[in-house]
């Protein structure tokens, strides 16, 4: 279960004077925040730095206590921080190019990758990562905010600066793409291969 917004707000209000509040908040939120940062940057070091900077900015800025939705606020900070790092680095996520992914998949599976029997076990082990990499950067961000951060569509819209219908549409498109991906690669819902 994700941390309650009211609890997060409470921690944010106590943050400036209470080190325990920081520790509690960090321990509770570090995993989903890191997950989001990782999906944005595609890089472990950058993701860790993003989370670190997000929390330290939170401490230094002292504006967290004004946030109405502390949960969305935290993800907004780490989202922006991760994007900043990404832009600073090169602006490209390592796995973010669907064409690149497709080319990679074809290298592994052959050009007719729809044929399921040519599958590589090692590749299938990281199947979800591959599926995520097949998404556009924006779709991946939205999926991460939805699934890993467990934010609502309205919150994601706020975090990403997109309109809510756009967020919804992108999310649905991403899910469809991943369903197609798994369909193409022949994995059935029960986890087995055909």
């Amino acid at each position: 279960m994700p941390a309650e917004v009211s609890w997060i707000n409470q921690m944010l209000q106590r943050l400036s004077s209470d080190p325990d509040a920081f520790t509690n908040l960090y321990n509770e939120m570090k995993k989903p925040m890191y997950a989001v940062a990782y999906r944005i940057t595609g890089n472990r070091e950058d993701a860790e730095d993003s989370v670190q900077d997000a929390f330290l900015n939170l401490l230094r800025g002292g504006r967290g206590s004004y946030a109405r939705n502390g949960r969305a606020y935290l993800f907004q900070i780490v989202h922006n921080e991760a994007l900043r790092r990404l832009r600073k680095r090169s602006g490209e996520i390592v796995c973010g190019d669907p064409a690149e992914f497709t080319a990679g998949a074809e290298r592994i599976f052959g050009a007719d990758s729809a044929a399921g029997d040519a599958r590589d076990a090692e590749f299938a082990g990281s199947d979800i990562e591959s599926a995520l990499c097949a998404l556009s950067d924006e779709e991946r961000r939205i999926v991460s905010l939805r699934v890993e951060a467990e934010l609502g569509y309205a919150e994601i819209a706020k975090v990403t600066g997109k309109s809510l219908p756009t967020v919804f549409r992108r999310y649905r498109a991403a899910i469809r793409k991943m369903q197609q991906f798994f369909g193409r690669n022949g994995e059935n819902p029960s986890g087995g291969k055909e």
Partner: protein
Amino acid sequence: MSSKMTEREIKEKILAASQTMSPEADARVLSAARQFYAEKADHESAKTVVSGAEAAVSQQESRAEETETKQTETMCRKSELRRKVRSYVPAILAAVVALACIAIGATGALRKKPQTPDPTPVSTPIPTGDEGHPAKWEKGVYIAADAEKSDIRLIPTPVVAAEGLQTEGYRGVVGIIYPRGITEQEAADYIELLRGGRDDPASFTCYESGWNRYLLTGMVNDSPDSPRYLIELYAGKTPGWVVYYTEKYDELRLESPTAIESLGIIRDPNRRSLQRNWPDWTTAASSVKWGGPDESFLPFDVSAGEMYKTVGAKLFIDLAAIADETGYWYPEYKEGAQVTQLVWFIVWKNRAIQVSPFENTLGAAWCDLTGDGEPELVTIGRAFDEQHSVYLYAYSEVNGRACEVAETLYTGYSGDWVFATGDDGALHIVSANRETMPVFDVRVELAEQNGKTEVTLRDARGILPTSASGNQ
């Protein structure tokens, strides 16, 4: 044959693959936080020390001054007087300067012509021919917003080109509809161009529907304190319509971009009355083939259904019904009609707002009824019996066919309702006021048995006693 993975399974896979911070990174963050708190504590204690030292110095100075005063008091009263005068000099000078400033200002004001305040704080630069976008003014219908008037309106190009938006008193262009097809990116680029340097710009999305028309939707928020607006625009080859909701007045309006004036308030704040001064609307209606209530519900083609899905999360736009005194009627889209008759349902803040006075339909929600990861549209309706008890019911389209999924969800109160869906695919129906009205959390379960769709409704207490089955 490959079976489709559900959304839930994909979510589970993503969560299972989620990584965590390394212990080293954890240690770094916590160490940096400890350092921050330590520095803060040091800073605060240093401040205490400094203020203590300052107090001590001040005390010493005061004592020294006291002694000195005692010594000089007896010597010379004149020197004390001089000191006092010196201490008043800055204040006297400041007063003189202030008086001089006031006098100068007053004189200047008398000489100046009276200034009229700029009535049009247009924040968006309007492109002109000089800026290299002359053609842009020739094609569209412009949307302008005025936070002070709590108003959003459409301005046809000729008006904009002739007078500019300043004369309209609006704060700037927040969007545009083209009378021809544009892609979402084109729309976004153009809106970006139009809105210029706005700090909190509107966010727009353009959808292509199955009718070669385009829906532009977005939020406008001029400042954090200003009312927010939801705009939906529907434009195409034929004159489009705009429906918008002003939060301040809790009011929906429908406007035609060809006739700038509002066609009327569709719903008053009490959501009861209906103004019928819709001349263009009547004209539009004549070109539409009408169907009766016995015809199939939601006579949409696939592409229209797709449009619903794209906008379904926030706002639900429904080709639904216009009621007249004789009953409920369903308009049917007619290919090639000059104007497509549309009546809108909007879900705003999870509350279904009904544009039409068709009381049978309260609103709609998206639920994954079949569990395949794709939400189905569930429409919630209500009916009254002779005792004025209300019956809520839900129906949906499954496999492309209208299917009543439930009836008589609740009997009793006819109030305001909020509809929302959960990630579990269940249809959650809750009352608008949880404290005074019953709360339902209904799971609609569908099961295929002998060609029939069995429906079971569950809430937190178990299977609802009023649950019913519907046949597909």
